[in-house]
């Protein structure tokens, strides 16, 4: 990549030579760039999802670690999760996870190049298939949660 790097240095040289050329700033974006249109804002929200999911994952690791410390420690932790700030966090994390999943699956059609019966599978079909797979997997998880532990409870 030495050619690209050499060239970018050349661009920067232009930027500091306003007598010949003008570049508004050094390479970069104004902090409000994402407010230019709805798609940029959605992109930033999609990226922001990673922060919530990272915190949620750390919280899960803490929860798993507490399993080693006995029932009381675990129950105390779970009880805290029912407080309003944590509930708001969980709702936010779930919303962001949903947003990330939807935007990821919408984009899924752009990734693979698939062929079926000698013909290229369209982007729309791949996306529809991804959503169908997601719906089936979600339904399976929901059924497992609702009915999976019934035998043990009774």
């Amino acid at each position, binding site marked *: 990549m030495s050619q690209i*790097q050499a060239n*970018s240095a*050349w*661009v920067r040289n232009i930027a500091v030579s306003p007598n010949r050329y003008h*570049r508004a700033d050094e*390479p970069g974006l104004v902090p409000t760039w994402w407010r230019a*249109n709805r798609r940029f804002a959605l992109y930033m929200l999609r990226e922001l999802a990673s922060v919530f999911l990272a915190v949620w994952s750390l919280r899960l690791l803490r929860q798993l670690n507490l399993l080693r410390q006995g029932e009381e420690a675990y129950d105390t932790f779970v009880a805290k999760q029912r407080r309003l700030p944590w509930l708001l966090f969980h709702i936010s994390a779930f919303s962001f996870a949903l947003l990330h999943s939807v935007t990821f699956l919408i984009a899924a059609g*752009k990734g693979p190049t698939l062929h079926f019966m000698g013909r290229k599978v369209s982007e729309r079909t791949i996306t529809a298939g991804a959503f169908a797979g997601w719906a089936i997997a979600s339904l399976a998880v929901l059924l497992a949660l609702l009915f999976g532990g019934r035998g043990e409870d009774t």
Partner: protein
Amino acid sequence: MASGESITLTATRYSPEADVEPWLQSYVIPYREDMVVLDALNYIKSYVDGTLSFRWSCRMGICGSCGMTVNGTPTLTCASFLRDFFPGEIVVEPLANFPLVRDLVIDMSDFMHKLGMVKPWIIRDRDKPVTEGEYRQTPAQLEEYQQYSQCINCMLCYAACPVYAMEPEFLGPAAIALGRRYNLDSRDEGALDRLKVLATSDGIWDCTFVGECSVVCPKNVDPAKAIQQTKVDTTIDWYKQHLLPWMRR
């Protein structure tokens, strides 16, 4: 057609000999609903202010020369009608993310250099003699790359890309799309050569999939798709190479 009506067009002005910073100048010109922004700029150039500089050529969305930022959106001015903005004001600025040469004219050298890096031409290990005839393709083979061959090098995708704005080292949407166009061409044998440029941290892996490049593309090339497909292909190839070497093509 409306007659006697006028519209205000504001354009970026910058003269490297006289100005430290670009500035905006407004022109009030006659409005016709069949005029495009490029027509308005040419009207200004011909009848109002001959010093206004901008780049254009074909006036029909083929040459890719007249790309500018119109009311904040990178667009071909020959395909952008005044009626879509009337009676509001139109603000025409140069394409973002490129050095400004004069008024609405940007320096495209960086793009031209990167375009050359992906070798956007058919590479053959061995050219067959003319006597053996032409390189033939089936319609299916043509369909593989045809979408990406529609690129007119207008650079709207670079102006729309926040990654390119942040990291000028980024190879950029159009160059990657054109690299993929030739990699998918059944007549081409230069894919490995191009992947040395495409499959790098300054190439496809710099893209965070904002997707705006495909939104502004006037020819529906969908560079974001080309980048994601190349990511998938190179990832599969990496796994084949390291985990399943016997499956590698």
